[in-house]
């Protein structure tokens, strides 16, 4: 599985330390690099496309165990493969302690620790940082595009919303495959981290109201910088049927919900979730989704909608509308 945690670029191979840590840790702390994950990183360094530099994104990592990456030190000396840690501010002292040959480079406000023989130049590092930021989104775009299935018999009304659609984006493929789920969840968790940092909502709780949103919301709960409480309601979509009415009584007031969804098309589930929140004296302040079919601002004036992917750009064949839609 280590090779599946790597994204390939023409000039380097890329991985995310949090992805490695999540899949490999014995105890469930994805933000802490432990020995098992260090071993996986070593396997990647040694075996996955060893002719190219390895770029490891440390974004979101809180720390690492002593000697978690000690196994890499001899490999560095032996293989002399370029190894670059980006977004490494939180780990820099520990990385340098374990891998003495690392040099530290400021790159556009980021801390980069690099090893190479010869050491990579500043322009090379800048290019790695710039390109690496896009790789994960490119990967997610490809996954979402592949999840689209056109309807065999032409446009049909969707179950969750009275829109005509040329097909459906099915998040099952992004959840069923563990590696796809890892990349998707990491980006969603970071989106939630961003909105918390930017908007500073108080009394935040994650809210999922469908079967397929539940794993995504739970992953965000476990991966986000601040572990946010999670509320799952079974279920408001695609078919609206709340099955545990009795357990919805006595919910706290004043909560700011961050609505987590797989895809938001017409926004019906979001609307229902808003109604539920208002009934309990709460609000839905934000919505995070893998993709949206409309522009985020079209959904609600009260909810800040933050998609990872624009579905119309991701798959131009996907059409949505109320009346006739252009056949693809």
């Amino acid at each position, binding site marked *: 599985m280590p090779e599946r945690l790597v994204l390939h670029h023409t000039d380097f191979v890329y991985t995310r330390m949090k992805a490695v840590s999540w899949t490999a840790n014995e105890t469930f702390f994805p933000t802490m690099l432990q020995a098992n994950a260090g071993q996986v990183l070593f396997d990647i360094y040694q075996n996955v496309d060893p002719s190219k530099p390895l770029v490891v994104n440390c974004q979101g990592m809180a720390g690492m165990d002593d000697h978690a990456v000690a196994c890499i030190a001899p490999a560095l000396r032996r293989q002399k493969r370029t190894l670059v840690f980006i977004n490494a501010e939180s780990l820099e002292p520990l990385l340098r302690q374990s891998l003495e040959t690392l040099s530290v480079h400021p790159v556009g406000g980021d801390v980069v620790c690099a090893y190479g023989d010869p050491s990579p130049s500043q322009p090379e590092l800048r290019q790695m940082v710039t390109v690496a930021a896009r790789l994960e989104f490119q990967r997610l775009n490809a996954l979402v595009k592949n999840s689209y299935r056109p309807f065999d018999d032409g446009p049909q009304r969707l179950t969750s919303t009275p829109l005509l659609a040329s097909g459906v984006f099915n998040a*099952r493929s992004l959840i069923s495959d563990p590696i796809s789920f890892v990349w998707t969840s990491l980006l969603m968790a970071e989106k939630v981290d961003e909105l918390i940092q930017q908007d500073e909502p108080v009394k935040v709780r994650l809210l999922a109201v469908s079967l397929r949103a539940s794993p995504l919301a739970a992953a965000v709960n476990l991966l986000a910088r601040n*572990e946010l409480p999670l509320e799952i309601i079974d279920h408001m979509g695609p078919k609206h049927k709340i*099955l545990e009415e009795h357990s919805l009584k006595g919910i706290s007031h004043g909560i700011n919900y961050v609505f987590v969804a797989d895809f938001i098309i017409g926004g019906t589930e979001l609307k229902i979730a808003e109604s539920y929140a208002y009934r309990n004296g709460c609000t839905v302040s934000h919505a995070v989704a893998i993709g949206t079919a409309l522009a985020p601002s079209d959904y609600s004036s009260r909810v800040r909608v933050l998609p990872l992917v624009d579905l119309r750009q991701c798959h131009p064949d996907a059409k949505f509308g109320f009346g006739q839609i252009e056949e693809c």
Partner: protein
Amino acid sequence: MCRVLHVTDFHLIDPDGETEHLRRRFYQEYLYRLVEALRLAGAPVPGCIVATGDFVDRGRIENFGHATAVLTYLADLLQIGPERVAVCIGNQDLVKSFETSRKYDEARKEFVEFAGKFANGSAVKAMHPWGGLLSVGPGVSCLIMDSTRGNTPLAPGELPQPVIDEIAGLWVHDLPEQDLLVVANHFLPFTPENLLFDYNEGNPTWHESHVWVAGKPLQDRICKWREQHGQPTLWLCGDIHQPLHQVVQPQQYVVTTGRLGTPTPGADSAIKRQARLIEVSRSRGEATVWTCNFEPAGHHENPNLGTWKVECSNLRYGGAGPAVAAPAPATLVPTVTATSVVPAAGVPHPLSTICAIDSQIEERVLQAVREKDLYSIGRFHTGEKEVSLAWVSVGPLLNEPGLLRGVISCMSRWFSKKLTEFGLKPNEVVILGIDCWGAVLASQLSVLSGSTNFCLAARGRGEHNIGHETVSQSVCEALTHSKAVLAVSDVIATGNTLRWVYDEVVAKAGAEVATSLRWLSFSVICDPAQHRTADCLFLSDQATVCAGLRMPILSREAIPDETTFPATLSFGSET
């Protein structure tokens, strides 16, 4: 009244393979269904089991261990102790090289060790290298004969005259007058002129290798003596390729039974897999037989598909030989039905043996339930026939700091252990997350293990969900290429949801796929102390985080109706 269950010819070749009904992964279901078919046919419960040889195939003595498991399981289903199970040797149960060089004891060493676990070891009245007299229950003695000793390894053996004299002259004469004598031989000691059939498989010398001619004098003397004294004798034989049942002389009965095992598909044969239950009534002077035939689902046998059909008749006195049944129609008849079945008495429900896998996490769960007041009492309709009286809100429970991580960690450790135990790779297992919290746990386990996972909506039996949230084509495809499936739930109450998931897989992926998979179950909460009627015998292994929380289940008839005691929760399709 004496009742004997006769089985024979297991012919175990590869218990870990995929083609034998008695293989490790299927024998329990196969035998459970046999016992259930007998029960549904109104057959009485046998008092003992007699098995007449060829437990292993062609000297594969390493399979005696599994033969022990098969017989023990069958006995347990019928609540029969091992001291009431009698076995005799078949020509394929011995080591050929030793037999050829006349080292008869060495050739039978493993069989003797196997037999010693049953009445052959614990209920012996008399023993001789050629046979033994056992007591297998009140009023039933069993004479087990070695019809293979001497001669060539694959043909019936010799029987010296002194042995005949001792057995017929002493042992049989000294039996209590009221006892039924069951004589168990692998090879038939009756010559064709005695019987209603003359089956030779197109081979004129067939009788030389299938009829125990040397045993005929013993048979003559025993039948003559016992007929004269009005004492019933039941001759049970294996090996025979044309099963029959017949009264050869007054109260002297012969029953041969078809094989219970062997691989499928084997050579096309009109002889179905069989077991027979014989009831001998001394007072009425007659015997009744329940013949259980395992009918294939199509024209050819299949290692997973088929149904036990039971026919009841008196033993034949004459007339035409047993008819060969026509092949079953070509519609698939899965061995597992979608209706709930009460497990046979004595067989524990898989969920009643469930244990908490980590006592520390269990204690944290119990503490969180108490402190957050998450336990509710009411009427919760989660099954068709039963009602759960308790409910735990899993969402607030798993929001307890660190508890979700703790559950995921211990689930992951348990899963790794099961992969090793069952020799599975992660990509050979599909994880099914049942409903929202099951989907949460399944997706996390999928990341940690590398196995594929699917979210399934089970509440309301899919009525409130779209196709992608059920057992869809993608799920069926994944299951078809897998060896095991792990169903992950938040709370298991009646077990009906697990059963429903299984039945959905049967219905949409096919019974062959469903029964070929090893089924595992993991839950956050499951109370082993509850009596459940949902048939969950398809489960190979199950685990839970918290087994110590009582979640009472009652049948709907045991509580007031809904106008008096309204439902707190109902998912719709179960009511």
